[in-house]
């Protein structure tokens, strides 16, 4: 018996209706732990080169971790993976909420979907009873609306993921929605669900998970909560959630503004964590097992409409607020709500919309192509473009592929400011004076995403300059944190530690924010699974998974290599236009130096391909 795991992997061909519940292979759990590890291994083994990401042969893997659903802090995480329609390579996204625990209580560590249904359908998993229900009445329904309809139909004890119109229309950055405001946003997993004609998956689980030492695990779990509650930062961090970082990011000159032309927004105080609390907040909202509920549920009133919305989180503030220049928190929240209903990733959506705005400003696209004039700072224009994208209408059909294919279609030099890596739009940190963070984005397996390594704090800690003094003095361009020395080791270390949380099925914020010690996870992991693993040994597994996802990209992307690891030319050639980092950029020679060191330390050749010796050393094939 696999303690800690549900014990089954449920595979459903949504075209034929065939369902198979296989035992979770013990060697898979031993070598890849769960969550992200299961996703990476199953995708690597099951998808053939040349597979169309939006064709029936692609898979959507939904995986829990060995700690998901147990009585311990932050155990509500679920991992999604697929051959990404955004990048053509490895794609995954992580989500909080309650879905993963429900899946485990239903008896499944993993859900693997293949094929394509003939008509729009919902998968209903009620413990061991599984149905694929055709239901075209949900067609075109917002992701939040669809969840409400299904909750009313099936019952509150079902946990449900849905896609919006953007997913149905296979927008490359469509996101999965859950619990009226949690998303698996990145890499377009929802577009793949849409290609399979799956509008929703609903799960009710009433079973239990075998635990090696149930009494010990329960006592340890309770003790872990007490440790969290006793942390001095517990009461002060939770009220503001991730939005608390907004003004800080602006002050250190890393807040994306006007499609990343600048890294400093004068209006940051109107869209920061305090603004969320003052102008939107109704209540805090937490995920399964969460002692530090960072979700902020609120109500936004704008000239365009009013909405109840969860958020905005920092990333949505950065891309919809900073990059699109929406200067009021209510407007950011409303744009966030529109994205949630349409089923669009707020990160990519904000970057795509701000890219279109800059293209229009520079005369690369015109009013005839767009259907109207558009400008930074206009909520009306943001919503107009979001709706066009989700419907794949007019200019929206081009933008729906993301900034990489859109810039190829628009031409006019727009690839210079198409802000992405590997085809995935950049999230909320401008890096022209943060080389460690830049390298993090460049080498992240899914593309320009921040949660694999967040090295911005490290970049700043290595600086000799005092940012606050520079701001007071108005001394833009004088701050210098951009020495690349020593950054590579830090980035590599974080690329193992951050994804490990996604592998175990837990939230990292308790550790990162209030200092919850990782030794607790070692102890509870042993009590739950009966397997003794140190945190260092778990990190070694995470390192192996990192090598595997690189190999996935090599396998699936024609010509994959070094050229896929560069940021847009803006970051290598154009100076930041304002703020403490005014005048800064990082030359390609410096990035090449970091890449050379990074590849060497990873055991990859100069083109960024894992060498045969490396593949053998990690036991990969």
């Amino acid at each position: 018996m696999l303690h800690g795991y549900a014990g089954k992997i449920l595979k459903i061909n949504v075209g034929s209706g065939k369902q198979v519940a296989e035992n979770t292979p013990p060697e898979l759990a031993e070598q890849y732990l769960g969550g992200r590890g299961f996703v990476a291994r199953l995708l690597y083994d099951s998808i053939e080169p040349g597979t169309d990401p939006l064709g029936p042969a692609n898979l959507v893997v939904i995986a829990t971790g060995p700690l998901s659903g147990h009585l311990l802090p932050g155990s509500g995480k679920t991992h999604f993976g697929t051959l990404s329609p955004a990048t053509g390579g490895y794609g995954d996204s992580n989500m909080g909420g309650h879905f993963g625990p429900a899946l485990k209580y239903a008896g499944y560590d993993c859900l693997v979907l293949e094929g394509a249904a003939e008509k729009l359908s919902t998968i209903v998993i009620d413990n061991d009873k599984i149905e694929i229900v055709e239901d075209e009445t949900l067609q075109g329904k917002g992701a939040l609306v669809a969840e409400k309809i299904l909750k009313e139909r099936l019952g509150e004890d079902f946990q449900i993921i849905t896609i919006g119109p953007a997913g149905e229309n296979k927008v490359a950055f469509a996101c999965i929605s859950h619990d009226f405001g949690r998303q698996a946003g990145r890499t377009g997993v929802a577009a793949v669900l849409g290609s399979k004609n799956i509008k929703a998956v609903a799960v009710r689980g009433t079973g239990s998970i075998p635990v090696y030492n149930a009494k010990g695990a329960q006592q340890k779990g309770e003790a872990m909560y007490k440790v969290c509650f006793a942390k001095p930062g517990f009461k002060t961090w939770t009220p503001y959630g991730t939005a608390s970082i907004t003004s800080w990011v602006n002050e250190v000159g890393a807040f994306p503004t006007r499609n990343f032309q600048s890294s400093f927004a004068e209006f940051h105080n109107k869209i920061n964590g305090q603004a969320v609390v003052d102008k939107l907040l109704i209540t805090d909202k937490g995920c399964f097992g969460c002692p530090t509920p960072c979700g902020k549920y609120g109500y936004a009133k704008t000239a365009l409409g009013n909405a109840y919305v969860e958020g905005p989180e920092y990333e949505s503030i950065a891309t919809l607020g900073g990059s699109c220049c929406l200067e009021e928190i209510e407007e950011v929240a409303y744009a966030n709500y529109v994205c949630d209903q349409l089923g669009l990733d707020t990160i990519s959506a904000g970057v795509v919309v701000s890219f279109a705005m800059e293209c229009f400003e520079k005369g690369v696209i015109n009013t005839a192509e767009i259907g109207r004039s558009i400008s930074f700072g206009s909520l009306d224009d943001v919503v107009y473009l979001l709706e066009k994208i989700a419907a794949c209408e007019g200019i929206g059909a081009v933008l729906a592929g993301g900034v990489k294919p859109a810039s190829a279609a628009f031409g006019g030099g727009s690839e210079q400011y198409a802000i992405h890596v590997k085809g995935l739009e950049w999230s909320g940190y401008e890096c022209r004076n943060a080389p460690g963070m830049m390298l993090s984005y460049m080498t992240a397996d899914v593309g320009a995403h921040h949660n694999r390594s967040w090295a911005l704090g490290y970049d700043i800690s290595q600086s000799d300059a005092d940012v606050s003094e520079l701001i007071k003095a108005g001394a833009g361009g004088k701050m210098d944190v951009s020495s690349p020395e020593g950054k590579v080791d830090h980035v590599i270390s974080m690329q193992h530690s951050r994804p490990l949380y996604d592998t175990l099925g837990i939230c990292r914020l308790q550790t990162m924010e209030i200092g919850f010690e990782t030794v607790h996870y070692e102890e509870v992991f042993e009590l739950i699974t009966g397997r003794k693993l140190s945190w260092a040994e778990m990190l070694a597994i995470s390192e192996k998974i990192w090598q595997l996802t690189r190999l996935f990209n090599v396998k699936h992307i024609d010509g994959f290599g070094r050229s896929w690891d560069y940021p847009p030319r803006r970051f290598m050639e154009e100076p930041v236009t304002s703020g403490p980092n005014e005048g800064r950029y990082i030359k390609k020679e410096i990035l090449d130096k970091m890449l050379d060191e990074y590849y060497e330390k990873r055991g990859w050749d100069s083109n960024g391909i894992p060498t045969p010796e490396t593949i053998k050393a990690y036991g990969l094939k």
Partner: protein
Amino acid sequence: MMTLKVDVIVQGYLRELYPHLREKEEVISETPLTVRQIISQLGIKSETVLFVTQEGRIIDKDYLVESNTELVLVSPPAGG
């Protein structure tokens, strides 16, 4: 002359950045210090601290700290 004694809680991502620090540090000074100066005495760049709290309330980094108080240094969310 009165001696200033302040306890400083260092937690989360800050402990990754400054692994030489313990979760609870003590700063003693013969002269008055601001929050920013106390942070600096611990070898921490003040820009790496998201905000500082005293008795659960956020205080300015230029605030002059009274003796026998406890400051909590809060990390940036480290990835939003």
